[in-house]
């Protein structure tokens, strides 16, 4: 188990290095284009171009440029945005991360619990009207775009029915840090959590149901029945436990992508200043240092969450521990 952990962490560092080189190459070593012009933004003054060239060491060899960039990203953290007149990029990302993490963690908790209930109930009553109803509800959830559902909820919660008992507690759009006002933090995030979770709960519920039904055909389920165990114990301790792998795999990918900026739609709709919103704004102004930094941040997060998933495999599936 310890070996698995160490090896996986080593692999992770290696992949992260590879990604950073690739991201660097895309922005700085694309043939036939001048990176300083892109970093400086549209219609930049010649003095700015010179400053950029000096700042990023663009007159020096590529490996030196790479090391300089990494130093500014991870060591000194003083990568500067030229479009936004000297705004520091790294603090911006650090400020945006807790927003995105709050949004995605809460939504993830919600959708995992909901999907667990939906999938288990549907599998236990497969073929019944309850199973069909849950699967149709799941399909509807999957089919509703986040921006649409979010806008509709905003319409009701913020204006149309804001004075009704149902929505009078809803604070205005925006983000309240957890450290400042925990209850306010919770209240601003409830609707975004729900919006994001609806999509994934339907998807995960359907996948879990499929995995459970497959597990229930296995020989060890027959053995468990022959042992005289109760149906609920067979379903939860044996079938569900063995179906976790497929859900965990998917979760690692989705979670990583969402934290890495995939929650952009929800962040924009609910005016949450997270990583997705940051990327979105940077793309609109073509703010290259910010884009570069968010790309590297996002890819690192996906790699990290995949590593966590692989380590979780070791706990869930004993056959992986010896591999």
């Amino acid at each position, binding site marked *: 188990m310890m070996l698995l952990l160490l090896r996986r962490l080593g692999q992770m560092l290696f992949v992260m290095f590879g990604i950073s080189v690739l991201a660097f190459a895309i922005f700085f070593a694309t043939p036939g284009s001048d990176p300083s012009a892109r970093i400086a933004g549209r219609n930049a003054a010649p003095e700015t171009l010179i400053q950029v060239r000096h700042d990023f060491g663009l007159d020096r060899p590529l490996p030196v440029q790479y090391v300089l960039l990494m130093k500014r990203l991870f060591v000194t953290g003083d990568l500067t945005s030229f479009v936004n007149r000297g705004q520091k990029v790294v603090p911006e990302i650090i400020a945006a991360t807790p927003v995105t993490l709050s949004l995605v963690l809460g939504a993830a908790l919600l959708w995992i619990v909901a999907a667990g209930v939906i999938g288990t109930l549907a599998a236990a009553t497969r*073929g019944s009207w309850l199973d069909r109803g849950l699967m149709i509800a799941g399909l509807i959830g999957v089919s509703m775009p986040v921006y649409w559902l979010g806008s509709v909820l905003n319409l009701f919660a913020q204006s149309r029915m804001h004075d009704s008992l149902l929505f009078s507690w809803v604070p205005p759009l925006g983000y309240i840090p957890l450290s400042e006002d925990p209850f306010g933090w919770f209240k601003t995030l409830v609707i975004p959590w729900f919006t994001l979770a609806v999509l994934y709960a339907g998807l995960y519920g359907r996948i879990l149901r499929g995995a459970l039904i497959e597990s229930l055909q*296995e*020989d*060890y389920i*027959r*053995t*468990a*029945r*022959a*042992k*005289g*165990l*109760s149906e609920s114990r067979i379903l939860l301790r*044996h079938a569900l*436990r*063995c179906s976790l792998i497929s859900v965990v795999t998917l979760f690692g990918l989705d979670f990583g992508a969402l934290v890495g900026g995939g929650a952009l739609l929800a962040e924009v709709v609910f005016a949450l200043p997270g990583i997705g919103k940051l990327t979105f704004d940077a793309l609109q102004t073509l703010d290259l240092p910010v884009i570069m930094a968010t790309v590297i941040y996002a890819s690192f997060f996906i790699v990290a969450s995949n590593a966590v998933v692989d380590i979780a495999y070791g706990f*869930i*599936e*004993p*056959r992986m521990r*010896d591999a």
Partner: protein
Amino acid sequence: MPESRELLLSVRELSVSFRTRSGIVHAVDRLSFDLRQGEVLGVVGESGSGKSVSMLAVMGLVTDPNAIVQGSIVFRGQELVGTAEKRMRAMRGRDIAMIFQDPMTALTPVYTVGWQIVEQIQAHQPLSKKAARLQARELLGAVGMPNPDAQLDRFPHQLSGGMRQRAVIAMALACRPALLIADEPTTALDVTVQAQILEVLDHMRKTIGSAVILITHDMGVVAELADRVMVMYAGRAAETGTASDLFNDPWHPYTWGLLGSIPPLSGPKPRRLLSIAGAPPSLVHLPDGCAFAPRCPSRFELCSKRPALSGVLEHDAACFLDEDARVLARPAMATDGAGP
């Protein structure tokens, strides 16, 4: 001898059928048999003859919503067909246990062997985890697991096939069931391991005193362990009797075919082994009369009616051939080789 022992299980006119798209499949067709305490009954027949399904019905584990179970299964004076699931569940694993063919897939892969045996013990006995674990350790020792302490914490995939089957046997016998149903317990194992597992099974049933229903298609296994044998064909009992009855004086032409398909250990080797002509009947369209008649070299007019099991001294066959006819017909079948 068996006669003196008390009756444990009595199955009468048991039928299991499945509704399918192509019609009703009669997997078990009015099957009757008895089992006494501590007795070993070998159930023999080819694939699809209803061996496994009939025993799953005894366990109350025919869970297919399209299955219909009819007839009567009386276990220790209690009718099992139609018994509430909750009562059945309490008996399963405690009074009647079952082990399955493939030990590779019979254990839940994510739990240790010890955990699964403890689960079995705690499902039926109010024991603490510690006491149950101690008992599990003892059981593993009893089934001949080397170093049982270490094996408790190992996962199924870390054990060999033979070890796993030992663990499965230990788990099935954890609550000292009165009846153990073993569904081809050695079929998936190496030949060298098969003998060991049979030995463990025999040793354990003697210590615990369980009756065993041994489902197999291996006549050698039957010869070694079984007190009595039931030969099944197309969901019906073709012949029942003591093991020596069946091996020394088989009555039913299907039994002749089964025995003829084993290469003899001594004497001249046959040029080719006997095979039974034709294929097993479709269970959707069974013939009205004897199910074996279409493949039987000795069939005659009477065979268009369904024969009842009849005989003397617990040796019964579902066949209309009388003793004289058998004496004439059996050698004819052996020399014909391929039947009619």
